[in-house]
Every structure is written in C-alpha cells, then in structure tokens.
C-alpha cells in the first residue's frame, strides 16, 4: 500500500472520529488500515427500523422505534484514493441496491470505479449509504425483484424489510 494511501486513510479516520453521521460506529485496526468495520443503525424514517412493541408501527417518533444494526465492511484498494473503496453489507438486508447474497456488495453512484473521484471521502460514502436506506435508488438497482416490490407493493416491501431486520439485524 502506498504511503499516499496510508496518509490519506489515517487523515480520513481522524476526520471520521470527529463527525460521523449519527447512529454509526467505525471499528478501526491500526495494524490493518485498509479494512474498516462499520456498524450502522437503520434510520428511523426507513423500514430498516422496527418498533419493539407493534409489528406494523410507523410512528417514527416512538422511543420504542429502533434501527436495526447493520454491519458493513469498507475495504480500501492499494491505490486509494485513485480507486473507490469497496463497501459490503455483512448483515443481510432487504434492499434493491444491496446484492442478496453472502457478499452484500453495493455498486452504485460514486462507488462505481468510473464515477469515483479521488477527492471523494469515506464520510460521504457513509452518508450515501444512510440515504440509500431511507430512499433506495431504483434506477441503479442490483436486485431487480426487490426493486419491483418496492415500486409496486410498498407495504409488502416494508413488511419484508422489517422481517429481515428482526431476523438478521437485531
């Protein structure tokens, strides 16, 4: 790994520890800078948060409303920041933009190699993911069946998403 990448990752980590989006935690191993473990809470206004009391509760302000805990892994390529970081969901999530396999890979927007720009930062990637949980990007969907569900049968989509949260993202 180049010294440029090392310096840049350390700088970004320092920045992340100062202002991370709410409901996020970065676990960082100094011995292995290239892999970050992130724990992200499902935003309250998304179907990735569940009410602990009622099965189908959508009162987002309730204190019993809790985001599921999603584990993500961010891997930095050796020629970071000239190549984008690779983001994977380690927790299964019912989402049109996350592959429904054991990789849980995401590939959209700025994370695409041809769209990545070196000035982009990890923190903006984390913001992007949080926004995607609230509002999936249907046009860039990787799982078309889930995207269809989302488009045509929103209630069913919400229910399945919450079921998965209860099952995998406690």
């Amino acid at each position, binding site marked *: 790994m180049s010294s*440029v990448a090392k310096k840049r990752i350390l700088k970004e980590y320092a920045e992340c520890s100062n202002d991370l989006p709410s409901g996020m935690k970065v676990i960082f191993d100094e011995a292995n800078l290239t892999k970050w473990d992130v724990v992200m809470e499902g935003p309250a206004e998304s179907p990735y948060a569940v009410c602990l009391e009622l099965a189908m509760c959508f009162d987002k302000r309730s204190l019993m409303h809790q985001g599921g805990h999603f584990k993500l892994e961010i891997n930095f390529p050796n020629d970071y920041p*000239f190549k984008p970081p690779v983001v994977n969901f380690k927790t299964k999530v019912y989402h049109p933009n996350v592959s429904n396999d054991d990789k849980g890979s995401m590939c959209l927007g700025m994370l695409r190699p041809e769209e990545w720009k070196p000035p982009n930062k990890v923190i903006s990637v984390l913001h992007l993911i949080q926004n995607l949980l609230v509002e999936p990007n249907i046009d860039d969907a990787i799982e078309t069946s889930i995207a269809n569900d989302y488009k045509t049968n929103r209630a069913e989509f919400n229910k399945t998403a919450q079921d998965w949260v209860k099952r995998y993202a406690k």
Partner: protein
Amino acid sequence: MESPPFSLEPPPLVPRRESGAGLPDPLSATAGEAVLNPDSRRNSFSVGRPPNSPSPLALMATGSPPARPQRYKVQPPDLASLDYIDTPAPQLICGICQSPYVLPVRLPCDHYFCKDCLSHHFATQDAGNKSCPMCRGKLDINQESLEVPKIMQDMLDALRVRCPNTRFGCSWEDERGNVRTHVMIYCKHSLVECPVAGCDLYCTQTDYGKGCLHYTVQCEKCQGSIYQSDVEILFLDMKKHMDSDCPNTVAACQGNIVGCKVAEIRKDVVAHERTCPMALMAPYFREQQTRLGLAEARIGPLERKVGLLERGLDSITYKLYPAKSRRGTLENLYSEDTTSVPSDSIPEFRLPDPSFPQWGSNDRATAPPPFDSQIDHLLTLHESLREEVSRIKMELNESEGRTNMLVFNENARIRDDMLHMSGALNNVRAQVHWMMSEKLRPSASSGGSTAAADSNKAASSNGNTRSGTQGASHSMAARTAAARLPPRRLSDSTRQETKL
C-alpha cells in the same frame, strides 16, 4: 567536543562476529574490519557487520560530528506529512491527500492539486487518457500548467506547523515556509544521512558518530533480528524483549521466592511452571511479602510513637509523684521491692493503699504489675479480702477446738477432786457415827447428839483418837459448849443427815 559519541575501547564482540557471519544480512555483504561498540549495553546482541565501517581512528580524524551540523547531509523535511497546528481552510486542502497543498499545480480546469498527488493520479491512468481528478476533464499531459497565484502560495507558507522531528524531542513551531530552514540548519533532532558511504539511509545526529547502524542485530538467544538503529531508538523495547519475551534467555521459575531452584531458558521454565507447585503458590507468597513489607514499614513510626508516649508518661508520673519516681525507673522499683518481700509464710494482711493507681507503692510492688483499670484493682482487692476472711475463719475454728479441750480437761480434774472430797467426807461421817454410837451407849441421855457434833470437830483436828480417857475429857468440854449454842447444833446435825 562536549561528549564523545563513541569510545576507543577495543570491540569486545570480536569472537561473536563468527555467529553473526552466518546471518542472511544483505547489508553486511562487504565485510568491515572493525566493529564499533560504543555502548556496553549492546553486549547481549551479536552484531552483523556494517557495510563499510570506518575505523575508530578514521572517525576521530573527521572530528566531532555533533559540533558542526553543516557537515551532515540532512534529510529534507517531508512537507506532505507535516503536523498542522490549526485546521487549514478547506480551500487550501488537496482533494487527493486531504492535506494543505505542497507545490500546488493548477490545471486548465482551475483545479489545484499537489504536484506529487497529481503525478500519482496520472500514474493510475492510461497514457493517452489523463483527466482531472476532480472534474474528469480531459488533460493534455504536454500542456504547460497554469501559474499558481502568489496569494495561495503565501497562505500555504503562513500555515503554522510543528517540527517534523517532534517525536525525537524538538518543540519548534512556526510557519510552514520556515520549516525547511529549521530542519536543514537549526534543528538538533533532524535525521541525517548515514556517515558511511554506500548506505543511503538516515540516522539521528546523536547516532552519527556510531558509524552505520543500518544493519541487523540479532538477539543472541532467540535469533530474532532487528535493525541496530531501531535498537537505539527502541532500546527499552529490546530490554523488555530480553526481560520478558525472549524464549531463550535464562529465567528463574516463578516459584523461586518459595524456594524453587529451577532456572533455565524461558521456554523450558514456562513448561516447568505448569507443574511446579511452588510456582502455583508464588502469587500468594508474593502478596504476603508485599504485605510484610508494608507492615514493617508501619512498625517504625509506631515504635517512635511508643517511645514518645513512654517519655510523656514518665514526665506525668514525675509530676504526680515526684518523690517516688525520683527513686528510679519502674524496673528498678520492682526489683528493689521484690527483694524486700518479708519471708513470713503468712504475710501480714494490710489494707490497700488508698491511692491505688500509684506507681511506686510498696503494696503494689509485691502484687502483679499495675492494672489497666480501677475495677480490676478493686476486684483483686476483693479477692485478697476474701482469702483473708477465710484464713481468719480457720484460725477461729482452731482456737475454739483448743479452748474446748482445755475446758474438758479442767472439768475432769475438778470432778476427780470432788470425788476425792466426798470420799473423805464419807469417811469422816462414818467416824463420827462410830464415835456417836460409842458415846450414846454409856449415857443414853438427850444431849447425845450435841456431844457427837463437838467430838466431830475434835476428830478432824486431832486425827482419830479413840482412847477412853481422852473421850471422857472431851465429853466434858462438849457439854459446856452445847449449853452455849444449842439451836445451831441441832440444825447442823439434821442437815448432815439429809445430805449424806
């Protein structure tokens, strides 16, 4: 020359160089003649050979390096990794390295990047397909880059930074524009080029005189190798390695504080400790030892305190009973008094001294040492009184018995006397009776009884005389006497009759 950074003592490691020769050390390919050993603490490492060590004499000839910093080839500061004191304005931050620009380059699209960052970026792109990292605008690599505004360079130079050698102890802080001058000329902590030709690495100025340290040393024990220059910087780590990690240094069993004598190389000791009962007990004993130490540390002050209190007590005693305390210390008092204890088996009872808490009292001297409280004292007093009372009771019993015996004996003697007397009396009566009947026979008169009483008196004084002539004269006298006292004689004779 303030402090010579090396010494001229002969290298003590010469025999060990053989073991180092077998090391796969690329830097020691060209064998040097002398090995500098400026520091004896490095004795435990076998040393590989530096590429081209100068002889100590040669180093002496070049003079003392620290005195003339300009002799060094100093490593120039890396501006890209400077530590900024304040957060720089975002307009001055390079999008690639996320740090303030170093040698900024202005692209035709008016985007700025560090010169190095941009060349890194171009290296990742195909030859004919270079683009701006920010806007992806096509770039012609041969095109002249635009001039960077002077104000931007000035703002970058005005950013405040710390000396890059802060971790070696430099506390310099100033504008970024001065950092190069500081590091190259003034900073005492700059890394300098290795003094040995052929080595293109850097070392600290304090290590400059030690020759090239850029060869591996080997821990003699475990064959773990480490850069000599790192040993210098991380010497404490190396010491730690020897003290606690190195599996081949000789270490003692944990149980040595209990008495286990095992001391072998560490990996064997670790195996031994698993089975050694003394090693198992060791933590307990170590704890006990620390507690013992603590207790001993506390005894000292307490002893001083007791001495202080004793002196205070002495002075108080002196004030209260000056006469007695003047006789000497307590010990003397006791020993004097015990020798003067009377040897009588039954000591004479005395009432307790009214001022009982008194220290030098004679009474107390024979008794056990002073009591804690008055109650104790009273209790013992009570006890001794009780003993005294029982002793007196026994004595009373004894004397009563003695008196009884005395009375009994006296009684018996008196009774004997009485018996004797009554016997004598009977005898007299019988005599009188005989005499009376003798007299009554010739006269047979009415005065017989009175004459018998008279003759009775005469018989007792004269003894028993029965001659007839004497009896005649007696009866004559008795007749005259009877004429004088007739009533009394009558009553006397009748009384004697009834008694006997």
